[in-house]
């Protein structure tokens, strides 16, 4: 808060380490957008910390010229929690993937979200285990053929955003590696949100799961398959031809050329929890996939409450006096 933040450029956030993701990996774009957006956020470089688990996405901290830790599989949310509680001034970013965050580390993720520490979580979802060479992940579609599921996987996939909402996350958004502008907008919004910001990034693994999100990134298809959420605006997609209206709690796709106008449509309100739950369930081919901020709410953060409690303890218990503490309530003296 004191000294002004130096005018950084993206280059200032690029570490001297060679980036070793596969050529064509979606992770490159996410890294680039992060390096591009952080200079605009007003954070000092020394106050930025990236914490990751294990997996392709979790190599991310090595490439950011900030503080960072490549921790162990699934545990980044817990590491980040200890970090943030010890130094609440830091801007903390958890980098995880669908295996790291939703399988081995699922427990930590939901507890981080319910506690609502003021930090950001980027879940790179490529619907596959990449670093272990192509097993199905907890977000892979049912029946997926992989090396570990030659007859098709039997697992019903997680819906990451519905899971985050179920854990009472206070900021839930989706974006995609192929849309740099949107990705940067969401990263910035996550930073500005006070609380745990959960971002699912659709990320293409061009080696083990190429094109899994093609329906949402392919120019010819994406107008019909995605729905860009804009605060206060009606839900319109397909180049303005279609919209979504609510019939009770049921979303219905309507054709705007067939007697419906924008006034009939569902207007996006990211502070409406009920609508956010419905939006998160736009998860099959019958409805376009929402992109943007599905939900946000203002709720006290754990780190803030933690600091308040520390201050209150100080008020009630007084100045620390180690000698008094060691003596305790009942002592006696032997001459």
């Amino acid at each position: 808060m004191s000294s002004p933040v130096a005018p950084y450029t993206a280059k200032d956030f690029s570490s001297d380490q060679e980036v070793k993701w596969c050529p064509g990996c979606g992770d490159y774009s996410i890294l680039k957008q992060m390096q591009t957006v952080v200079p605009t956020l007003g954070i000092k470089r020394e106050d930025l910390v990236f914490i990751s688990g294990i997996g392709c996405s979790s190599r991310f901290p090595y490439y950011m010229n900030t503080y960072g830790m490549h921790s162990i599989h699934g545990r980044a949310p817990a590491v980040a929690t200890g970090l943030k509680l010890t130094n609440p001034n830091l801007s903390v970013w958890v980098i995880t993937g669908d295996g790291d965050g939703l399988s081995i580390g699922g427990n930590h993720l939901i507890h981080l979200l319910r506690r609502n520490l003021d930090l950001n979580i980027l879940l790179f979802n490529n619907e596959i285990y990449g670093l272990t060479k192509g097993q199905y992940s907890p977000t892979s579609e049912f029946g997926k053929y992989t090396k570990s599921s030659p007859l098709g996987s039997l697992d019903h996939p997680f819906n990451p955003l519905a899971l985050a909402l179920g854990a009472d996350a206070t900021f839930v958004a989706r974006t995609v590696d192929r849309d740099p502008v949107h990705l940067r907008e969401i990263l910035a919004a996550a930073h500005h949100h006070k609380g745990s910001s959960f971002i699912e990034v659709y990320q293409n693994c061009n080696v083990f799961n190429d094109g899994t999100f093609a329906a949402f990134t392919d120019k010819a298809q994406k107008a019909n398959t995605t729905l860009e959420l804009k605060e206060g605006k009606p839900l319109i997609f397909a180049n303005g031809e279609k919209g979504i209206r609510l019939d009770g709690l049921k979303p219905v796709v309507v054709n705007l050329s067939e007697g419906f106008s924008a006034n009939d449509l569902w207007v996006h309100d990211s502070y409406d929890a009920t609508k956010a739950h419905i939006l998160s369930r736009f998860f099959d081919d019958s409805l376009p996939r929402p992109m943007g901020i599905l939900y946000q709410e203002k709720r006290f953060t754990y780190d803030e409450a933690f600091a308040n409690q520390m201050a209150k303890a100080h008020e009630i218990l007084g100045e620390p006096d180690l000698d008094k503490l060691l003596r305790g309530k009942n002592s006696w003296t032997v001459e």
Partner: protein
Amino acid sequence: MSRVKELQKVTIHFAGDSGDGIQLAGSQFTNTTALAGNDLSTFPDFPAEIRAPIGTVAGVSGFQINFGSVEIDTPGGRPDVLVAMNAAAYHKNISNLKNGGVVIANTAGFDKRNLKLAGYAENENPLDSKPQDIQFHEVDITKLNREALLDLAISPREKDRSRNMFALGFVYFLYSRSLENTLSFFKEKFASKPEVLEANVRSLKAGYHYGDTIEALQRYRIEKAQLPAGDYRNITGNQALALGLIAAAQKANLDLFYAGYPITPASDILHELARHKNFGVKTFQAEDEIAAITAAIGSAFAGGLAVTATSGPGMALKTEGLGLALMLELPMVVVNVQRGGPSTGLPTKTEQSDLLQAVYGRNGEAPVPVIAAHSPADCFNAALEAAKMAVEHMTPVILLSDGYLANGSEPWAFPKAKDLPTITAALAGADVENYQPYQRNENLVRPWALPGTPGLEHRLGGLEKEDITGNVSYDAENHQKMVRIRAAKVSAIANTYPPSHLLQGAATGDVLVLGWGNTLGAIKVAVGQALAQGLAVGQLHLRHIHPLPSDLKSILQGYRQVLVPELNNGQLVHLLRDQFLIDAIALDKIKGQPFLAEEILNKIKEIATHE
């Protein structure tokens, strides 16, 4: 008029149902005894179930205290006095009572139902066929207590809840103790419940006065112990451990960050720390054991004095986190309050069976310093030392305690804050140019650079790192070098130890009794008695399990035989063979109970060379 007899030491065993408030009665007797100036040692022993089946032997909760005007090193072997609140408590403990001992029996707990639950045959009541050499006080505590509370507007059930205090009052009378400490404890504890306060006060006094009304009752007096001069308080191991951590944080000028997941018998450390947040103590109850250790790692990265505590099963879960901490070379204290294992094992019983897990139990070449506390009060020193070692050597340190130390208590000559050792963290200042995370000092310790410091931005990780820069490296030569550097760094910690010293005996002799952890008191008594009997024995007790002290081998070689009493299946013996090729003799006890001095003495006599 009662007669008063002088005694040097007494062992009392309080026993009753796990809902009978035995632990409370025991700890009150302990605090009062401590304030009366006796030396003492306690051993609470209770079932893992909160309310185990009422009236059964499995549901018996016990609390033993050994106190005296002489030095007390153990909670005593066979008790002199058994307070049995019901038939099950009697059944479980009577065979252990000393010949000529005293039983205080609550006769209401010996009714038909209780006798059956305790496993006595139809129409069998042990009070009808009492052993001749034991003195009995048969008191209908339940009835007398109800009468004392007759006009109180509380339910009969609530009235019965304070009958433990009637029993305590009676024992206070027998041992000429003051009621003051317990009365003021009531005032504080029941401040918001005046009728409960009144019930407890009346019960305690009624028990005391009951003693006064019995004709020709034998009373006892135990003079103050000749403890070394100083200020004392009574303390349990878990409390002492928590205070040691707070003291370390104060001396290191760091905020204590403690992350834990509830687990018996470690939870009281969290409870104690959570009461002292004004010392900058941050406590975090994590979602699981793994989150607890990894949150501690996050805190260590940010500059906290990071601590997590657990017991055996939790330690197993923390293994991967420990590996990360040693790879990152961040300071952290991991406390294992050992209990009976394996798996869930015996949660409320004590054991020393996680020693090899602590020393060896990680993937890869993963050396971590291991130190062990040896008495309840010593948990303070051990915690302080573990924290100092972690911070000054940039390494996770495992601190071993156990259920017996954690819940047991003893008088503690607490130190003055100014006399505690200083702790100097290896912090890198913002003025460091060209910061290299793995550039080491003469002790092979790397500098601790905290996020928020401009110019020291760096990345750490669990992948093998290049020497000096810390960048990811898969280079073959580098890996071998780094493995050896990490080992050498931990080995070098042994250079900071004070010289080992024998607690008893000469530098050379027949049998050296080598212990670690909670066996100290029992070994001390046993070796003392063996010396008195003219045997050439010595006593050495290890604080440092890994690395072992460099002078240990020569001390061991001064004796013809080395005897290692352990509450496990011979784990330290393995370590000694591993490191010194010394064939030590194991005395193992794996019963969830601490050693009795006589068990060790018998073994010493068995192996001693009789000329």
